[in-house]
Every structure is written in C-alpha cells, then in structure tokens.
C-alpha cells in the first residue's frame, strides 16, 4: 500500500509491535474474537474474525457467505422479467435501485429505450430508494454508537418514503416495478404533491440528524480521524459510492456516464470530503440524502407526459450478446454483466454489488484500531448483508 496517512502508519506499527509482543515477550495468548455471524452490530450474518491484544485489533478479516442465496445461478433458470424479483432482494433497503441496472442491461441488448416519462419515474423511484436506504443508515449510526434515539426518527421518516414507494409500485420493500421497455404502471393521482411534502419532511429529518448526531462532541471524537481510507487505497480496493467520495475522489456514475435515466436533466452537486475518515463517510451520506430530495423535487417539476411503456414483444427474447450496465446505487456502484444467447432467460449474469467490494478494505482499515472502532468503521463503511452475499 502506498501513501499511508500518519495515523494509519502509526497504528500499523503499533499493531505489528503488539503482535510481536504477544508472541515473544509474555507468551500470552492473543484473544481471537468472533464478531458475528450473530452479533447486534453487523446488520445480518457477517462475521469479523479479529485477533486482539487487549482492546487493540492486531489482525481482522471479514468472513462472508453466511447468507449466500445464489442469485447469479438462479437468474440463469429464470426469464428476464422474473429476474427482477430476485435482484430486488440484493440490497433490501433500496430494492428498486437493484432492478434498474439489470433492466437497462436487458434493454441495451434488445435495443429498446424506455419512453421519457418512464425514465423520469424510474429516476424518481431510484432516488426515493436511495433516501429510504441512506436515511436508515443515518439513524442506525447512532445505535452503533449507543445513542438509541436517532434510529426511531429514521424509521419514522423512512416510513413516509416507503409509503410513497408503496403508493407508486404496490410493494414497500420489493417493488418489482421495472419492466423491460418501461414501467408496470403510471403514477397514481396525487402522488406528486404528496412526494413534495415528504421531501420537505426528509430535509427536516436530515437537519434533525445533523443537530442530534453530527454536531455531538462525542460523535465527532468517535468519528474524526478514525478509519482513514486514503484516496489511492480506496481506488485499489475498488471502493465506490459515498465511501470513495469521502476519500476525496470526485466520482459519481449518475453524473459521469451516459445512461437512460434522467440525471442529465437535473442539476445536482456531487459531495466529496477530503478526510476519508468515518466522519467524512457519514457526512457525505447525509449530504447525499439532502441532494437526493432536491433531485426528486426537480424531477417532479419537469415530469414529462406520455406513455410509460415502449413497444416490446409480449414474450421477451433477448438477442444474443453481452452487456454491462452499472449505476450509482445507494451503497455504491452496482452493475450487471448479462450474457444472452437469445433465450427467454439470461445465459449468465454477473452481479457486481457495492458492499462486497466496500468491505474488502476491512482487513486493511481495521489494523491497529480499538474494538469500539471496529463497530464505527463498519457502520460508516455501510454495507447491507444481502448486497455482500447476493
């Protein structure tokens, strides 16, 4: 690893020294602590194997796969419309966002494009699922550090967003709403006005969280300077999303790539933070939630009329070929590599989910930290277990 920050280097040296001391000097046994698979802090069945010297972590490694459901393999025996039901359950907090890149990949192979209105509604739902996802992160952040109140605010306000998603799609958690060539339905009456109100509420929620958590001195001392991931390390480990932007890399697929979503129609800022520590990651996510509410507002203002479905055959057969589409999902870059041989279903699907790559940096960043920092670092890296194990 090149270019370590001073703190990282120091903690690395400390960890090495602790390791040596463990083995030579006292002949004490290092304690190996299994954090997980069942543990209140890990959002699911992730296991972190940590070797400790007292409270300091000498070596740590995440062990995933406890919830592997084999979606890549299952997708091979499903037809294209059926696959969205599976991929809904990858990142279960922002389900709709999982469907979009797969549908886009299939559309790319079929060479159809959804009509403008469908693209706009897709983008709105995409951002709503981002808000639903990240607002829970903002509340959960407190719980990970012992403050129990913020999470209830998060659940309270996330409920409004889920109601919106339910109103539009019929499903709170698993919309299964995106279709090749468009959407299943148009928006219900009154939905747009309600969404505007909810976006105002969500902005209030962001202010509340900023007051309650981010301004708190204890929170800052727990977060600032902890778990620093420099930009080049973040790139080497393939981090994406807010984790990468918090390291100072100005990288956002919503802005950077040409894609059949309405992001080029709206004006939004990509937030970055130079520090790369836990606080930066949380702060970037907070700002992104605010930004997402503004994106939704802008999209609602300019929602074009028209059909919501392009002309596609009733029985969808995708022509042979390969396509790779990735989007900026709530957790980071999520992409599908779809190989088709002209059948009803895909021949092979490779899913690139953000969390799997995001937690690959865990062994690097956990060296030399204290046990409580494991939790804050994992919380700030923000993974969903379904997104790791697929």
């Amino acid at each position, binding site marked *: 690893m090149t270019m370590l920050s001073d703190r990282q280097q120091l903690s690395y040296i400390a960890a090495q020294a602790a390791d040596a001391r463990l083995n030579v000097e006292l002949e004490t046994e290092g304690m190996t602590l299994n954090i997980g698979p069942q543990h209140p802090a890990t959002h699911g069945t992730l296991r972190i194997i940590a070797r400790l010297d007292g409270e300091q972590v000498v070596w740590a490694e995440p062990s995933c796969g406890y919830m592997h459901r084999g979606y890549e393999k299952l997708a091979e025996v499903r037809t294209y419309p059926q696959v969205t039901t599976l991929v809904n359950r990858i990142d279960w907090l922002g389900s709709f966002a999982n469907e979009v890149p797969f549908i886009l990949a299939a559309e790319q192979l079929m060479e159809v494009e959804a009509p403008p209105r469908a693209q706009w509604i897709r983008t709105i739902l995409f951002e709503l699922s981002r808000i639903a996802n990240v607002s829970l992160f903002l509340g959960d952040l407190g719980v990970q*550090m012992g*403050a129990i*109140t913020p999470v209830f605010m998060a659940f*309270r306000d996330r409920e409004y967003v889920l109601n919106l998603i339910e109103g539009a799609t019929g499903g709170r958690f698993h919309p299964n709403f995106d279709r090749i060539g468009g959407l299943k339905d148009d928006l219900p009456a009154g939905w747009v006005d309600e969404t505007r109100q909810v976006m105002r509420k969500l902005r209030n929620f962001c202010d509340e969280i900023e007051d309650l958590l981010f301004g708190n001195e204890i929170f800052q001392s727990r977060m600032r300077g902890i778990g620093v991931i420099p930009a080049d390390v973040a790139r080497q480990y393939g981090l994406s999303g807010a984790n990468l932007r918090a390291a100072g890399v100005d990288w956002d697929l919503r802005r950077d790539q040409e894609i059949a979503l309405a992001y080029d129609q709206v004006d939004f800022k990509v937030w970055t933070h130079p520090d790369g520590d836990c606080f930066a990651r949380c702060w970037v996510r907070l700002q992104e939630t605010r930004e997402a509410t503004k994106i939704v507002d802008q999209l609602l203002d300019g929602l074009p009329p028209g059909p919501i479905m392009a002309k596609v055959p009733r029985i969808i057969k995708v022509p042979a070929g390969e396509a790779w589409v990735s989007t900026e999902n709530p957790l980071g870059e999520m992409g599908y590599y779809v190989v088709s041989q002209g059948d009803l279903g895909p021949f092979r699907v490779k899913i690139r989910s953000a969390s799997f790559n995001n937690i690959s940096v865990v062994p690097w960043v956990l060296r030399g930290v204290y046990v*409580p920092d494991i*939790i804050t670092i994992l919380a700030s890296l923000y993974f969903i277990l379904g997104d790791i194990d697929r």
Partner: protein
Amino acid sequence: MSALLAFEIPYWGQSLLRVLGGIVAVLLPAGTIVYLFLFKMMSFMQSRLGPMEAGPYGSLQLVAEVGKWLQKEDIAPAAADQRIFKMAPIIVLVSTFLLVAVVPFGPQAYFTDFSAGIFYALAVGSVSVIGILVAGWASANKYSLLGGLRAAGQLIAYELPMVLAVVGVVIQAGSMNMQQIVVAQNTGAIFGFEWLGNPFVLSQFVGFLVFMIAVQAELTQPPFDMPIAESELVSGYMTEYSGFRFLMFFIAEFATAGVFALIASVLFLGGWGVPFIWFGWESLSDVAWWMNLAGPAIMLTKMLLLTFLMMWVRFSYPRFREDQLQTFAWKFLIPIALANIILTAILKVVF
C-alpha cells in the same frame, strides 16, 4: 422512628421495619424510574407511545416484565464458574441496599445515621465493581470478559472524581454525616439571605456537575456504557445472564440510579428538608414530626428531577470510546474537581 409512635418497638420489630423500608426504598424508585423514564419518557422522545396495553396507560407493563423474567429458565453456561456466576448479581444488588442505608428521608426517618455517612456511601458504592468484575470473569465469554474489564477500569477511574466532588460539600458542611449535611444546607444563608437556605448546588455547582457525570459513569449509562455496549460487546458482563439473575442486574442498575440521585439530592439540593426559617426551626431537634412524612415525598421529587437529567443524557448521547473515557476522567474531571476543592477550602477560610 419510634418517637413517632406511642409505644416502644422491640429491636427485632425495628429491624424488620428497616428491612421492609429498605426494600421499598430500593424497589419503589427503581420501578418509578423504569416506568416513567425508561418506558414512557424514552418513548415520547423517540416519537412513539411506549407500552399502552398492560394496565391503564401501560402502567402494569413492569409487572408483566418482572413476571416474564421470573418464569424464564435460569441458565448458566457449562464452562462458567457456577458459584461465582450465580453470586455476581447478588453482590451488585447488595451494594445498592448498602447505599440506601445511610440516606436520610426525614429528621427521624432514616435507616441508620452515623458520623461518616457519605464516606461509607462512597465506599460501599464501589462494591458493585466486584460483582460486575466477577460476572464478566465467571461467564466464560469473551464479550463478558471484555465488558467486565472495561467496567472495572471505568468504575475505578470515576470513583475518584466522585469522591473529590463530595469533598467540596463536606468542607462546606463541615461534616460527613448525611443528616448534618442536610441541616447545614437548610439552615445556611446565601450572603445573609436566609429564605432559601443554602443548597450546595449553588456554591458547589462544579462539584454537582462532576458528581453527576461520575454517577452516570458509575451506573454505566450512556455516554459511559462501555461495559454494556450492546452494539460492540452484545451486553458486556450481562450477556450470559437470563431470568431472575438478569432481573437482579436490571433492578440494580435502576435502583442504583435512584439511590445515587437520592444521595446527590442530599448533598446538593438540600435533601429531605425545607429551609428551616420557613417554620422558624433552629436546629434538627426543632423540626416538626410531620417532616418524617413530607421528607420522603420531597426526596422522591428531587430524585425524579435528577434521574430525569440522567435519563435525558442516557437517551440522547452516543458512547465514548474506552480510552477517551479514561482521558475524560483523568485529564478533565479530576483536575477541575481538585481545583474546586482548593477554591472551596480558600473560601471557607475567608468567610
């Protein structure tokens, strides 16, 4: 207490009354705190209603919870040190009962009254450390062990600022006797103004803050709940406990919060008394008999006020890291507590 009654109660009767009174004095505050603050206030702060079904407004929820805990199986891990594992919650709860023994509730309404009351209270307050440490050790669980060790380090570190904060009060009152501290506050005067007495919270404000912070740490409540830290250590030293042994830890946690609030109200808020000048009393022997009945009510009110502060902090703050917590104790609390003592001593000599 016998002065209240026309006849003399035999010694065994007095002891029995004291034991019953002690149980009431420990369990009543604990129950009140749990229902009022843990169930209701916390729910309102988190925009929810809390328990509503059991009894009117959920008031019997606690009874249901206790019933649930009592009928659960008492499990001990196979690798645990059985005797010590089973003893630990009792040690923790005993320390609470020992604490309440010196708290005066009225001119004659006290369990015991001796000259080194506050000194004794601070001493037995740390008995619970032993219970927590052995609970962590005997559970044969890595999380419990870490929690127990953290608790030991933390409680010892916060013992000091607590003692130092009390020293200021002791200097001002000129006595370690809890009853004398109450009298000193209620007969005192602020720059010759006697109407309010002299509650030490005004002159010992720094001491009060340090004391309350140290109490929060002693109780292992957020932001000092490192030993429990449910998101890191699952439940720390309590991880392996279930059924009525867990209930004992639970009662001890909130009962100790209540008892420490009682002690704080004796030290800083004037205890059971009202300013003696209101009724023209001169000293402790003049105080009317009905203060024995009014005193406990006054104490309960003050206790609720202080526990409200403690719980407010508990529900809104994230927790410190272990090293930050030690730094806070040694580099911040202890120096200002010492400075407070020096200042108090100088002012005591000057006035």
